[in-house]
């Protein structure tokens, strides 16, 4: 037998043996068929367009959704998208992994818990960025965090906690709301129906498991999980007995979007459109007109966010900063930094990166000394608002709740975020950053300050934090009896205070009367204000009866004010007006009745004013500012907190200073690391080259008074105080202000220096040439021959 034949025999024998062994090992039943259905797409097949997504929707239990059935459940991304795109892998992506991922060196925008009433602007981050508090350490459970910030969360992460965590906090209502799974549609939905506002509203209503369905436009979701009892479960279905208040969340799917097999057409894109990113990542100057807002130069050139901020199935987005490749191990990230794309350089300056992606131009940087590239990041000159225009107050989607539209105004002015503040980043390069000053109540614990929850502050503060509410309640009460064109107001300190639709108090400056005049209550009609209680003689025979009718209406209205300290009454000269048994009682004021004439509350034999001196003083002091607390309020609340928990000293942080009660009970301010501003690098918007710093020459930055070095930032915060911190731009960079001023001034004679150097170079060069030519002529013997 030939060797080939022997080999074939061995092979056949081996195969036979294998079959016999397998047959002997089999437990006597047929082998399981391969699982049917789509395979997970972890490897790209090379096709450059994405397939049409006409899919059967599945709920969180994996059951097929039939839109025409009674009480269909919301679609589940885990069950609907998961069969093809591994859900657990996606869940580990940058947008979802904050609670579980290793801390990232490069800070990003923290979540800012803002509570104007307690003066809280608390920076939070699971990623342990400098200056931020871990939400758990700050007393926030995943549930609290989701309700606070879910409006700008894309699902997953804290909004989709583990079962263990979900059950760990009894106050959480995950069993009612469900979890907000990773919302694939938030980014990948190309449909114009994708509605971020709807997502925010559903989150606010605690309709977490329904939010993606409603926001994606798959159907209409009614009801509010927040109004349901904590014992309700989605398996209980609708409540037939309550169609008005505790209405169970329910979906009416858009049946027209389903085919006959109950499959839904998703209009998806692999690369999300910019609008989807901007739903959560918009940044715009405060008070700027929409038409005046500039776009990023990359967007203007036709690039999308996702062209640079790329990711694979793992959704670990390229953030695009230098050093990312070394930090994450993703070497491709090197070519998506400014330097990588435009210069083909790594963070270390090696020319090993493929430049020019997507047609990125090569910058010429004519006349820019090398030290700038060593010490500054590209974004210093190219990104954010020009510092030549001073610091810019901006609002961001996540901090200022932008992009949520409805009957109520969601967007807020607070917190005050400013940019660009130039500061050294983790690579010791100066980088433009956004800045916010933290403000919170805290308890001193060793060297640390542990934030006190706003609810605990409110509970301890009692009435100290409610002057606006109390005055607004009085004015709102009076609006019941005023005409449509009339508005009850409080006039104090040159301001007019009127109630607003949010049951708060608006202050408007008022010209004319002496601001030092005592506060008074009035009725605004048009441009004029008349006194709430006109001066008249109650004893006069010819008094206008309409006046007393009006007083009766006022008294009846004041009788509805919640939390009123006593019976409403009006003292005119020596006559007291009040309501007795539903009728206007006009009587002579008791001789021992203390108090000023006008409206008030009868409390323990005296006529107390409608608003206390403290209330009026507090709202007047803060009028016309963004401040929500006075030093008097802070001192009072700190006292209350110290009394409520005497085992630790309490402090308040605002405007870059730490405030605490001194031994004599007065408020003292001092520096503290905890009060330092929180900053994070900004990269967008990138300005065109002609708007970059340095285009106008060295003096764009190097002058005796440039904003780049010498702009001053004053600590902003809810507290009205003169003790706020103030810093120069140079101080943030870690540079000496005196030197920079001197260096800047040296640019004044620099043109002269250049001229002198040029003349010197010309003269020396000419003489060297002459001497050299002469020597050459001598050596060659030409000059001797002459």
């Amino acid at each position, binding site marked *: 037998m030939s060797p080939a034949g022997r080999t074939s025999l061995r092979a056949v024998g081996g195969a036979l043996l294998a079959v016999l062994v397998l047959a002997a090992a089999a437990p006597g039943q047929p082998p399981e068929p391969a699982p049917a259905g789509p395979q997970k797409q972890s490897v790209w097949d090379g096709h450059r367009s994405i397939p049409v997504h006409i899919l059967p929707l599945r709920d969180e239990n994996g059951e097929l959704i039939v839109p025409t059935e009674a009480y269909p459940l919301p679609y589940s991304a885990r069950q609907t998208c998961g069969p093809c795109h591994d859900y657990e892998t996606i869940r580990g992506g940058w947008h979802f992994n904050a609670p579980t991922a290793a801390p990232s060196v490069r800070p990003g925008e923290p979540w800012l818990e803002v509570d104007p009433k307690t003066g809280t602007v608390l920076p939070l981050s699971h990623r342990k960025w400098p200056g931020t508090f871990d939400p758990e350490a700050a007393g926030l459970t995943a549930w609290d965090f989701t309700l606070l910030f879910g409006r700008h969360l894309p699902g997953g992460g804290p909004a989709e906690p583990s079962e263990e965590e979900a059950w760990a906090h009894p106050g959480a209502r995950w069993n009612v709301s469900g979890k907000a799974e990773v919302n694939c549609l938030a980014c990948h939905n190309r449909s114009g129906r994708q509605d971020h506002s709807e997502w925010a509203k559903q989150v606010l209503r605690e309709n977490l498991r329904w939010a993606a369905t409603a926001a994606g436009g798959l159907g209409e979701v009614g009801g509010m999980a927040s109004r349901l009892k904590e014992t309700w479960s989605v398996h209980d279905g609708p409540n037939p007995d309550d169609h008005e208040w505790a209405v169970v969340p329910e979906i009416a799917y858009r049946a027209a979007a389903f085919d006959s097999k109950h499959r839904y057409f998703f209009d998806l894109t692999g690369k999300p459109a910019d609008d989807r990113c901007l739903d959560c990542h918009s940044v715009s100057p405060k008070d700027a007109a929409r038409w005046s807002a500039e776009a990023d130069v990359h967007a203007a050139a036709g690039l999308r966010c996702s062209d640079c901020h790329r990711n694979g199935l793992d959704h670990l987005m390229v953030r695009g900063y230098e050093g990312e490749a070394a930090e994450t191990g993703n070497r491709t990230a090197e070519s998506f930094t400014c330097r990588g794309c435009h210069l083909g350089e790594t963070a270390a300056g090696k020319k090993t990166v493929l430049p020019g992606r997507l047609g990125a131009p090569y*910058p*010429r*940087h*004519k*006349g*820019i*000394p*090398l*030290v700038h*590239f060593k010490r500054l990041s590209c974004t210093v000159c190219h990104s954010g608002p020009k510092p030549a225009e001073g610091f810019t107050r901006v609002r961001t989607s996540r901090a200022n709740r932008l992009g949520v539209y409805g009957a109520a105004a969601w967007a807020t002015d607070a917190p005050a975020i400013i940019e660009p503040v130039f500061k050294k980043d983790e690579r010791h390069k100066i980088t433009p950053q956004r800045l916010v000053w933290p403000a919170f109540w805290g308890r001193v614990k060793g060297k640390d300050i542990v934030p006190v929850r706003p609810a605990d502050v409110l509970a301890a503060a009692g009435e100290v934090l409610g002057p606006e509410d109390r005055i607004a309640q009085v004015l709102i009460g009076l609006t019941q009896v005023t005409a449509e064109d009339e508005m009850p107001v409080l006039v104090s300190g040159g301001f007019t205070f009127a109630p607003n639709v949010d049951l708060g108090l608006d202050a408007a400056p008022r010209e004319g009367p002496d601001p030092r005049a005592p506060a008074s209550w009035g009725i605004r009609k048009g441009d004029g204000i008349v006194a709430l209680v006109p001066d008249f003689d109650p004893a006069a025979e010819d008094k206008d009866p309409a006046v007393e009718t009006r007083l009766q209406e006022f008294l009846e209205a004041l009788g509805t004010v919640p939390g009123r300290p006593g019976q409403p009454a009006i003292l005119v000269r020596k006559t007291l007006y009040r309501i007795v048994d539903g009728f206007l009682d006009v009587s002579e004021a008791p001789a021992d009745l203390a108090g000023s004439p006008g409206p008030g509350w009868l409390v323990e034999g005296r006529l107390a004013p409608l608003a206390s001196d403290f209330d009026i003083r507090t709202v007047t002091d803060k009028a016309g500012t963004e401040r929500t607390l006075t030093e008097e309020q802070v001192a009072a609340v700190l006292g209350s907190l110290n009394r409520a928990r005497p085992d630790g000293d309490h402090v308040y942080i605002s405007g870059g200073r730490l405030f605490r009660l001194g031994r004599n009970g007065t408020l003292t301010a001092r520096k503290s690391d905890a009060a330092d501003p929180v900053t994070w690098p900004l990269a967008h918007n990138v300005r065109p080259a002609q708007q970059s710093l340095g285009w106008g020459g060295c003096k764009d930055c190097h002058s005796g008074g440039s904003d780049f070095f010498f702009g001053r930032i004053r600590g902003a915060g809810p507290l009205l105080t003169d003790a706020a911190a103030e810093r120069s731009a140079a101080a943030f960079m870690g540079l*000496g202000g005196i*030197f920079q001023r*001197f*260096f800047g001034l*040296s640019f004044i004679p*620099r043109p002269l*220096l*250049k001229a*002198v*150097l*040029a*003349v*010197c*170079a010309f*003269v*020396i*060069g000419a*003489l*060297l040439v002459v*001497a050299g030519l*002469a*020597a050459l002529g*001598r*050596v*060659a*013997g030409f000059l*001797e021959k002459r």
Partner: protein
Amino acid sequence: MLFAIVSILVLAGTFLALALHRFWTTREEARSTLLYAEIAKMYFAWLALRGLQMSRRASPRAWWSSVRGLPIWREPVLEKWLDICFYGSFLYLAASGFFFGLFIPRGLFGFPLVGHVMAGGLFAVCLTIIVLFKGRDFVTVPKPASLSLSLLDPRKMGLTPARVKLWAFWLFVLAGLLLIVSALLPMMPFLQTPGQKLMFELHRYSALLAAVAAMVFAGLELFGSPA
């Protein structure tokens, strides 16, 4: 790093060469043997001894008296101030530049940098005046050369200390010109980043060339053999 290594090697080599020249021209034992190893041994022994002697003698007072003994103080007022400005600015430029260039990773910065720029301007002006009004003192009149293999013979090149000093002067002038140009051009809106990098390196190596030329010139001027 490369610049630091090159600088240290070149400056040390120049110093040793100048010391060898002095040893060779002033010490009889230098010619007592033909063995290079023996010469080197004696040279280093002499150098160590001389270094020890000089360090023992060194004191602020001794330095001051040496400075006061320089001929510069006996020059006419204009020349005196020209030389003070020239030597002073060059010494500051060299000291600040090499100290920061060799020992501070960040390079020259802060007030020393501002001083460097100001001293640079002064140096350029002084150098120009010196070349313009004193350059003629350093012009030699070479003989016409004949084409022969003797051109390649070092012994027939006429490498006398006086000629080396003249060459050192013109080398210094050339280095000065390069220093001025490499300082001026980066301040103008002409050069892109590679050009800026080139000028930065040119400035540093020109400074090294200037320092070597100055060392040779000063060494031969101050410690040159009477012959």
